[in-house]
């Protein structure tokens, strides 16, 4: 038997463990586009700030103090106060919690459900695929913000309902995003090989196809999280956010908008905060997306 190794190029001598391999692959992905690090860091800072909100906030966010109302930034109130005398900085930090919780939970839910739908549709093809995707298309075509607005208005603006509404409007994009690579991977020979080896459909989907489409789904997840946060803020801005007096960034902008002529920072500060979080997540997701595409081609 001819020694195949020598005539076909040398391999590295030490074989890394699968875990080390994935860790280094992730690191390489982040390093492809260095801006994804910035995105990650900023986002983590916001997450930490939100978790530590009770510690970081100098005041109780709902503490009203009419005497101090509408102050511009001072040493005591770094970001000033709103029309009820509440400290803007404290409300900002607590508002981060709402945005993050709603954003993360709704995106995760949509990711799991949408991916399942998309994978099943892509895998089975035929009638199931056509019908499902047309249903998804109908939902996708409709402006998601407006659909979300109507859903929340119907169900009533509570945190749970907002999460449900955002999750529902996020499912079709995830289904689409999961379906296309499922179809592509389904055609690759190793899936046929698996069928020829007698593997069940479930095994093929979960063990073979899912790990191969997971990077795309995760990248989409981070980008969609940005979108979910934006939607939540939009809902709050329109008056359909979590009910006051709970501090939400969108709600703060709404209240600030009423006083825009004299105290413009009330609307500006939370607006900039939202912008930063969304931008950070977009940097993160976009940078990772760059890493994925050529990599897939290189491996395939």
């Amino acid at each position, binding site marked *: 038997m001819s020694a195949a190794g020598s005539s076909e190029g040398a391999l590295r001598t030490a074989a890394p463990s699968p875990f080390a391999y994935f860790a280094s692959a992730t690191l390489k992905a982040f390093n492809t586009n260095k801006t994804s690090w910035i995105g990650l860091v900023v986002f983590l800072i916001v997450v930490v700030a939100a978790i530590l909100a009770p510690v970081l906030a100098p005041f109780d966010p709902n503490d009203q103090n009419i005497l101090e109302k509408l102050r511009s930034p001072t040493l005591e109130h770094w970001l000033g106060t709103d029309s009820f005398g509440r400290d803007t900085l404290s409300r900002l930090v607590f508002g981060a919690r709402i945005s993050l919780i709603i954003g993360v939970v709704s995106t995760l839910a949509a990711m799991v459900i949408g991916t399942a739908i998309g994978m099943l549709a892509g895998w089975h093809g035929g009638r199931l695929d056509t019908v499902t995707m047309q249903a998804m298309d109908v939902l996708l*075509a409709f*402006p*998601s913000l407006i659909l979300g607005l109507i859903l929340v208005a*119907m169900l009533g603006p509570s945190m749970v309902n907002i999460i449900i509404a955002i999750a529902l409007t996020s499912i079709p994009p995830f289904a689409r995003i999961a379906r296309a690579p499922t179809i592509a991977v389904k055609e690759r020979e190793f899936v046929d090989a698996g069928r020829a080896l007698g593997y069940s459909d479930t095994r093929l989907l979960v063990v073979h196809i899912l790990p191969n489409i997971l990077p795309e789904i995760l990248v989409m997840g981070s980008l969609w999280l940005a979108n979910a946060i934006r939607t939540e803020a939009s809902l709050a801005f*329109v*008056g359909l956010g979590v009910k006051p007096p709970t501090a939400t960034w969108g709600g703060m902008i709404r209240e600030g908008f009423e006083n*825009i002529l004299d105290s413009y920072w009330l609307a500006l500060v939370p*607006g900039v905060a939202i*912008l930063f979080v969304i931008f950070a997540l*977009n940097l993160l997701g976009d940078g990772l997306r760059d890493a994925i595409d050529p990599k897939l081609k290189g491996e395939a």
Partner: protein
Amino acid sequence: MTTFLIRRLAFAWVTLFAVLTLVFVLVRIVPGDPAQLILGDQASREAIDALRQRLGLDLPLSKQYTVFLLGALRGDWGVSMISGQPVIREVLRVLPWTIELTLVSLVIGILLGVPAGVYAAIHRNRFVDYAVRISSLLGLSFPPFVSAIILLLVFAIALPWFPVISARSGSVMAWYQSITLPAISLGLISAAYVTRVTRSAMLEVLSEDYVRTARAKGVPWNVVIWRHALRNALIPIITVVGLYLGILIGNSVLTEIVFSRPGLGKLLIGALNQRDYPMLQGMMVIYTLIVVLVNLLTDLAYGFVDPRVKLK
């Protein structure tokens, strides 16, 4: 081509019916009696019953559905509970404003976005490319009401170049005054989307074999880009722009609020806050019609650009 069109039209009708049904269901899944919610806890039994009858809520569900569907198709979308006017009239009154804003924003987006995207793709990984990528990413990170507020603060409040309330009053100058800030606010975000998709489509196309063939023929580089490459890149660009229009319409709602501009957005918010069911139903119908129309136009656009589509 005809089969293609028939299929798309059929799909459009199906979508319309599906959404109308969805609207019908949504509006009625609200917990509690709508009439009671409107009139409040103190209302008398007779008042509630009278309102229910007026709204047609006492009929069996299936009858309500038929009435609703037939009405929608005939153009009778009920009467707004806030203003007492027929819903369709209210909608048609403000529709032109929204369409105008959407179109102008889209045009700005395309005029800025396509050249920027092409330019970034040609100079891939150089400084220009990075600048374009970061700024377009920033652009589409803006929640539309934040960009609107910033523009308002800078150009209407700090610098009194534009009015704070943007409603036309008859002359070209007035029109310009009322549309500029809202359109720029939306247009910059649109430009960000268009730039991204143009860039990625161009990069994709520039790596295709037929571009290599064109170069091997000795075709000048700028012709390769604009005639050989961009025409092919238009296909995915059209797709994304078509999808984006849905987002744009949603964003216009927020922009209209910030700039106090008449349009569907204001109507919608009012209806949501007041639970004006007939108005909500009517609004969903109009939004669906717009979306369906956009899809059809997108498909037609494909037919122009991609010769392979004509076959079907």
